[in-house]
């Protein structure tokens, strides 16, 4: 009976994963008609860097790094462009080291990990001979799940990050006449906190906050509707 339950759980879980994958494939479930590829974004960033468009370059490198976090070329060119813009390489250890693959791949691996852990723990209750291999499978599943969770936590910071496309004065209030607090350089990665009218409240690497014109920053993860 226990084997039957394990197989039922496994089949149900795989059906869930398959259904979710099918949702992704349904036309209209994703608003974009054009795919993002790490290589395409990287090449686009290289072209922008060669043309001296440092803000565009950093934006596309950051987007490429989101999809291919272990790509050394992306990291090297991003560091070089940031250096050219007079910026230090950001020191988010979690983002730089905890991420190992495309976040979507990590999501599906984590889901598979949950399935493996669940099915093997259920199956482990059956028979003595398979207990140790099943425990191994459960551990592998648990590791996959933890890797996915870590990736999700590391990526969370990117959700609200944006790149400053041209150097802009951060103001004390979201109006043109407000006092200028500090200048955010081009290609700086800032954290978007709040939008108000034509302005967005940002926090820079030095934890300073100010209002920048929305037109001067672009989110690393673009809103789906905007594509």
């Amino acid at each position: 009976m226990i084997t039957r339950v394990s197989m039922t759980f496994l089949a149900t879980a795989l059906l869930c994963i398959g259904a979710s994958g099918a949702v992704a494939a349904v036309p209209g479930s994703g608003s974009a008609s054009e795919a993002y590829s790490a290589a395409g974004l990287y090449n686009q960033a290289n072209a922008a860097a060669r043309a001296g468009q440092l803000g565009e370059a950093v934006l596309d490198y950051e987007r490429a790094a989101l999809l291919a976090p272990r790509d050394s070329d992306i990291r090297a060119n991003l560091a070089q462009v940031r250096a050219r813009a007079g910026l230090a390489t950001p020191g988010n250890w979690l983002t730089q080291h905890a991420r190992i693959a495309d976040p979507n791949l990590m999501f599906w691996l984590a889901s598979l990990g949950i399935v493996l852990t669940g099915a093997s723990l259920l199956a482990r209750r059956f028979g003595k001979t398979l207990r140790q291999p099943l425990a191994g499978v459960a551990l592998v599943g648990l590791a996959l799940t933890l890797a996915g969770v870590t990736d999700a936590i590391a990526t969370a910071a990117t959700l609200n990050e944006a790149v400053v496309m041209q150097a802009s004065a951060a103001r004390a209030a979201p109006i043109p006449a407000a006092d200028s607090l500090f200048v955010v350089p081009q290609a700086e990665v800032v954290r978007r906190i709040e939008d108000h009218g034509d302005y967005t409240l940002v926090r820079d690497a030095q934890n300073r906050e100010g209002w920048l014109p929305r037109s001067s920053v672009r989110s690393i993860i673009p809103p789906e509707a905007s594509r």
Partner: protein
Amino acid sequence: MKITTLKTSTTALLAVLWLSIADAAPIVSQQIEPATIALGSAARLTVTASGDTAITPPMVPGLEFVAVGQSRRIESVNGVTRSTSAVTYQVSASQPGVYTIPGSGSGSEPLVLTVTPDGSGSHASTSPADGNRERTDASAFVRLRLPKHDLYVGEVVPVDIQVGVREGIVVSLNGLPTLNGDAFTLNKLSGEPQRAEEVIGGKPFTVFTWHSALAAVKPGALSLTMAIPLTERVRTARVDSGLFRDAGMDDLFNDPAFQDLFSGSTEREVTARSVPASFTVLALPTEGRPADFSGAVGHFTVSSSLSESSAKLGDPLTLSLRVSGTGNFDRVNARMLTDVEHWKSYAPTSTFKPTDDIGLRGEKTFEQPIIATQTGPQVLPAILFSWFDPATRRYETAHTEPLTASIAPSADAAPVALASPPPANAVVAAAPETAASALRPDHVDTGEGPKTLLPDYYRPAYMALPSVLILAFLGAWAWVRRGEQAASHSAQASAPQHVQPYLSLMEKAGAANDAELFFKSARTALQIWFAPRWHLPASAITEHDVERHLGADHDVSRLFTLADESAYAGVRLNRVDFAHWKRLVTRQIQPEALS
């Protein structure tokens, strides 16, 4: 004598004067002008009373009376003196309607004031045709000057917005003219307005003119108005001009500027509006619409150029497309080049440089980074651009000339790689970089990837999946546990029934002095008893399991050992031993279960 005569004469004269004044009956009359006003404007009510009759303002719900002037006249005709008082009120209404102002006394007829809902009021032009005429009795006006009133959707036409104000009456303009009408868009107004003096209806106006461009966003019979907030000075008391009326100087002394010099005034904020300007807006024809039409309406010319005519393989080049002319540049879009053989193209960027101050004329430049993927002379095809021309009433398409670039081999590229054509969507080699910008080379792009950069675990459609899986796992686990517990309880409940025959067999084996059968039956009874409690099959319970659950020194462990020994080596027991082991087994199995 003379003094006495003078006193007598003076007394008589005063008596006659007193009698003549006292004899005059009070007469009250009133008149209103004009009898019909638009909402937001005011009429003038004059109440005249003879003698010392007090004049009080009428009380009419919905109407406001503000005293703006007072006068008193004393006339002496043939020795009869008559005094007349007059008060002038400014009458305004809070809403349209027909109001009756009651008479103020004997001989005074009620008056009727009609207030129309026309929003133009006293500060607007009155011509319903095109909004370019104005009233001369207003302190300010707004008028529009348009070259045409028949438009296509998206067609941009220049418009002059003129605001005329009376110096001395209009204190300030409190903003820029604004558009009222959601079917139109107005370009940025020109910077400082042009200023001119103009005499309208014999009165001087200062006219400010802004230039802009107007476009309709939907078809139909549409209208729009322009408005501007301003502050004007209003008189609170009025200098009587009756003495000058006969001299033909009434206009001069009724002029607000003159009145302001000699009377009190207050300021109020009003909005001056133009009369509605009507348009007939046509939809763009669907017939003959080019596939690449993006909504540009106007008249344009196009040209293109390449940043370098020769480059090395992998060098980025910039393809520029310039669209210049007159029209709605916000809808001027070009797809530039996509999927051109031997070229890798990227998304273009655009900049617009207006050549006038209203954004109607100018040049929009599209710049597209491109990289050649093969050596030799490479041709970039012509770029098409389509628009709708309102002058010809049809769609027009222009194209650029094809461009050629000479691509030399890259210094780092392998000759074999350059000799063979690169795969589709592949960039063969990186541009040779200077030491300052030695970027790592481009990657081969297969074009595959997600349709959004938002990771799946932050997309609502997917966020539920891990939770569903974990809940499914926990549910299955709980179900299995429940099934096991139910099976265990069932086995425990049925254990006494299954144990009883083996206890009887032990009894018989003891009586027959058969140790082997005795221990075998005792072991089986204990296995049946412990099986549901230890979640093991009865036949699978061994001495090892007993030691694990009860300990190696337990009597049950010894019984299992003796059972094995009796089976293979034979064991001899006396009656006392049989009784001991029987007590052990029955003590182990719960007595209440046995009962």
